[in-house]
């Protein structure tokens, strides 16, 4: 009997303690909401970005490398991108294509919902034995000779001094000329804002020293981003060592800064 009273007391104590903890947690939590937050210290994912104080990033030449041989088509990058920018349904700042090649050299390409849902189901319309499959993520090519910048009638699409092609949605007239001119179809007209939109390689994150959202979430490191002026960076090494690496539609003369590791001729 004495034992039972002891246990009961202990439970009561626990209960009291539990309620106390919940209360203090709730009060503390709500205090955090009303107190002005100090600047969050963000870990620097791109070396040397903290020192950048000028309007444009100095002494850096960014490049993006997509590893075709690495991508598993999970769609994480697409989800991260949609979250980052609230991209309207049916429009894509980035997407992932699935390539299937059969032993008759027939190439099957698809990208349902831009690969946003991941490729969890195999295609069932391929008659012959499959000889090869891979995924090709697509995003803005950040061309050195960008067609979109050339054709924009009001200069709303422009190339920053640090090499990013951006769209000023306060200036864009929504004529769609850039959408027509882009050889890679990475642009669309935002149905809410009625202005042009496209991937920016997460310029706002890069300025803070963070990697683009899609690079950040890629579970297999198939998307790589870095500074070509930094000889220790992965992208520098990839582009300066003997790798199979190329750009999309080189005959367009746009000189993309987006490179593909292990690019296959089937990818257009």
């Amino acid at each position, binding site marked *: 009997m004495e034992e039972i009273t002891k246990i009961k007391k202990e439970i009561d104590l626990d209960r009291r303690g539990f309620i106390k903890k919940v209360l203090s947690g709730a009060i503390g939590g709500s205090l955090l909401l009303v107190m002005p937050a100090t600047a969050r210290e963000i870990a620097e994912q791109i070396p040397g970005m903290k020192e950048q104080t000028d309007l444009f990033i100095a002494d850096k030449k960014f490049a993006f490398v997509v590893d075709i041989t690495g991508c598993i088509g999970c769609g994480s990058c697409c989800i991260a991108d949609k979250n980052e920018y609230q991209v309207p349904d*049916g429009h894509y700042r980035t997407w992932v294509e699935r390539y299937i090649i059969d032993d008759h050299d027939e190439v099957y390409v698809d990208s349902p919902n831009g690969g946003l849902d991941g490729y969890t189901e195999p295609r069932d319309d391929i008659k012959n034995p499959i000889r090869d499959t891979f995924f090709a993520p697509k995003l803005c090519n950040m061309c050195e000779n960008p*067609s979109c910048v050339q054709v*924009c009638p009001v*200069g709303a699409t422009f190339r920053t001094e640090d090499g990013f092609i951006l769209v000023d949605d306060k200036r864009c007239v*929504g004529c*769609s000329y850039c959408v027509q001119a882009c050889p890679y179809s990475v642009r669309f007209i935002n149905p809410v804002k009625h202005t042009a939109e496209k991937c920016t390689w997460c310029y706002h994150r890069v300025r803070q020293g963070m990697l683009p959202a899609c690079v950040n979430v890629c579970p297999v490191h198939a998307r790589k981003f870095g500074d070509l002026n930094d000889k220790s960076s992965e992208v520098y090494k990839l582009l300066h060592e003997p790798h199979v690496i190329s750009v999309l539609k080189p005959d*367009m*003369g746009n000189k993309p800064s987006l490179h593909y590791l292990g690019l296959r001729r089937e990818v257009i």
Partner: protein
Amino acid sequence: MHEILATASGALGYVFPNDLHVHWSLMIVLYPYITGIVAGAFIVSSLYHVFHIKALKPLAKFSLLFAFAFLACATLPLMMHLGQPGRAMSMFLTPNPSSAMAGFGYIYTAYAFVLALEIFFIYRVHLVKRRQETTGWQHAMYTVFSMASDNLSERSLKLDRKIISFLAAIGIPMACVLHGYVGFIFGGVKANPLWATPLMPVIFLLSACVSGIAGIIVAYFLLRKIAGKSIDMDCVRTSIKFLWGFFIVDFTFEMLEIFSHGYMATAHWHTLHELLWGPLFNSYWVWQVMILSVIPFLLLGYVSIRKVSDSLLRIIAPVASVMILLQVLLMRWNVVIGGQLMSKSQRGSVDFQPHWFEKEGIFLSMVIMVLPIIILYVMGKVFPFWHDDNQSEV
């Protein structure tokens, strides 16, 4: 609303996810169509004023007014198309010099200025006389239109004639620039294999001349019939000959362009072939080429070479002209819409069906095409169309 309207109705093969939208729809089909009619109508007037084709005298004034009425509506489809029409003026005020599109405001304004000036000088005698004859608000209106001048001396009339010749002469290269430039807006898009050809401005320009002349012929028949006035068959014969002449060159270039593509058979030809024998087969081969080019081509050739009776010409001339007008409209459709049906993936294409009631739909397109005719009617109250109307000659 926007995303439903400008979205393709279906897809074949692999289409890039963003290529499921047809961004340039009916309004951008109308824009080159209207500017083409403007440029072509001006050519008719210049054939009389500069090249002294006397038989075209009955059309010389009317074609200028016709051009002006259409020019007044040329920016409407563009404004309807823009996502942010409120910012349209920044194209004009702070243009990007490397953009083909940014030049439109300047070329359009300069051309409108020349056209308005030419109309003013051609109608000056009439305006001055009307000013003297009228009272009240009409007098005030004619005072404005005649710029308050009443000088009809021999010396000033001689000067008028000189200025008219000069304006008509500089108007020709300007009309060519206006429409050649519109062709370049498409021809300069290297990402689109159907558009990216140096022949595009030439084809646009020639089809512009053709549509302008055809438009003038149709309007001449219609308006004279409505007004119960006689039709000058000599004038019609001459216009038909010019129409045939321009159409020979136009149609030849259109076919040469496709033939060259097919003969060279570069990687792009595969895509173009899929397009022209796929979603565009009916609108291009059946309608634009076979029905609306070959038939009027033969009709125009027949009436130009053979000496046909006036009564037969009265039927063939307007029929062939209407067909040519439709041919050019379809050509614009096949270029503007057709070019966007191919995905840049080079592996698929989309379908496109315009809707009746939408921002860039069929109904609004019809309104925009009727508007110049209303403007023309109103202009006709101040500026008499025909030289046999009760007014003085210049």
